[in-house]
């Protein structure tokens, strides 16, 4: 079956090595909970053009790293009524934040809720610093998320789905398979049933979140997971949920767990 003007589909066989030294796991055996759905999980990087892929391989080429540098300044800046900076409590993020991104979203026992990384940072801002919460998926929040992600780059995603997280995870799973909008398409219709296929000019990936925040050439900034979800739901001609909503928190947990085993890539580069 030859599709005119569309290139052949599928994930490519390229290898991702960042800065010439960090080998990245971009394909991995699917977690047990994906039994019957997927055998292998694949980074969205494999579905992008060579030119776009290239930009992610070196931090000097990766336009997302500018925002990481900006977030480093924020990390060191005191704010709020307590006059504290992130650095006052967490010192060097290379030590304190290593491995953190790989486990989020994560159940917080004391709060009795699943927290995304942005929610946790806002908890620190409000309750530790006496500062205002950042708007969900707004520039500052996403930049900080990217800076924290870089400290886990190359580590396998390892999101827990049991214990306190189980209910939220189940809710996320239900959302993933619900066919929304006037086009009646679910996340799974595009990212499970059709990854590797072109839908018009778009080469469908598995819709993994290990690369987030993602620098998109389209809008020249870092984009949060929830904003990506919102765009995908809108494209089904549906009424979307909002970034930071209970629905997107649950969906993020579920989708992140589908990527367990894939290396944390943030900030990735996408078209």
């Amino acid at each position, binding site marked *: *079956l*030859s*599709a*005119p*003007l*569309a290139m052949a*589909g599928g994930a490519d066989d390229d290898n991702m090595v960042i800065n010439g030294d960090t080998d990245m796991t971009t394909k991995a055996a699917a977690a047990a909970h994906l039994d019957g759905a997927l055998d292998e999980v694949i980074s969205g990087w494999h579905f992008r053009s060579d030119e776009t892929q290239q930009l992610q391989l070196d931090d000097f080429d990766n336009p997302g790293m500018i925002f990481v540098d900006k977030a480093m300044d924020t990390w060191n800046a005191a704010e709020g009524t307590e006059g504290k900076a992130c650095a006052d409590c967490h010192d060097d993020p290379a030590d304190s934040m290593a491995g953190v991104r790989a486990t989020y979203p994560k159940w917080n026992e004391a709060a009795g809720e699943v927290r995304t990384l942005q929610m946790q940072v806002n908890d620190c801002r409000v309750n530790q610093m006496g500062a205002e919460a950042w708007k969900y998926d707004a520039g500052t929040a996403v930049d900080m998320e990217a800076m924290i992600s870089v400290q886990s780059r190359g580590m396998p995603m390892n999101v827990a789905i049991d214990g306190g997280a189980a209910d939220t995870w189940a809710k996320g799973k239900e959302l993933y398979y*619900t*066919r*929304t*909008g*006037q*086009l*009646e*398409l679910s996340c799974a*219709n595009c990212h499970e*049933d*059709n990854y590797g*296929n*072109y*839908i*018009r*000019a778009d080469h469908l990936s598995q819709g993994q979140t290990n690369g987030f925040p993602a620098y998109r050439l389209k809008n020249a900034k870092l984009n949060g997971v929830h904003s990506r979800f*919102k765009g995908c*739901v*809108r*494209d*089904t*001609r*549906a*009424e*979307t949920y909002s970034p930071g909503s209970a629905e997107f928190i649950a969906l993020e947990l579920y989708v992140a767990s589908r990527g367990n085993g894939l290396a944390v890539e943030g900030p990735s580069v996408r078209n």
Partner: protein
Amino acid sequence: MRLTIITAALVLAAGMSAAETVLPADVAYGEDGAVEMSLTGKAGDAAEGAIIMSSKGRGNCISCHAVTALNDAPFHGEVGPMLDGIGDVRSEAEIRGIVADAKMTFEESLMPSFYKTTGYIRPGNAYTGKAPTEELAPLLSAQDIEDVVAFLLTLKDS
């Protein structure tokens, strides 16, 4: 008096709600999902059907299907089967049924239901991401469906 009646009939036809137009809720699907009767009673325009199939804002069928005859429009998708030769394989009634509501022919089909207005989960106002402010219109009008059917019937290998 006569004149008024003629004018009224013209207005109706132009407004696409002529008496013959079958409403989405009233389409008679056969057991296999086929629809025998034209939705408008008016012959489809194949050239217009080709335009509808390639236009992003209308059928956007080529986002999922490759069609050699529509190669002037860029980027055909791979989500659905290639439609070359469909006019040989399927009858007019079968094609009308599939284009109007593919889920009547293929259970759980990925293909959107183009002539339907109810039964959606969180439908939005087109691609705005917002809740609809008025009653939903079908993705394609009855005549659009007939035009697309007419075009697909021209896709013959022999």
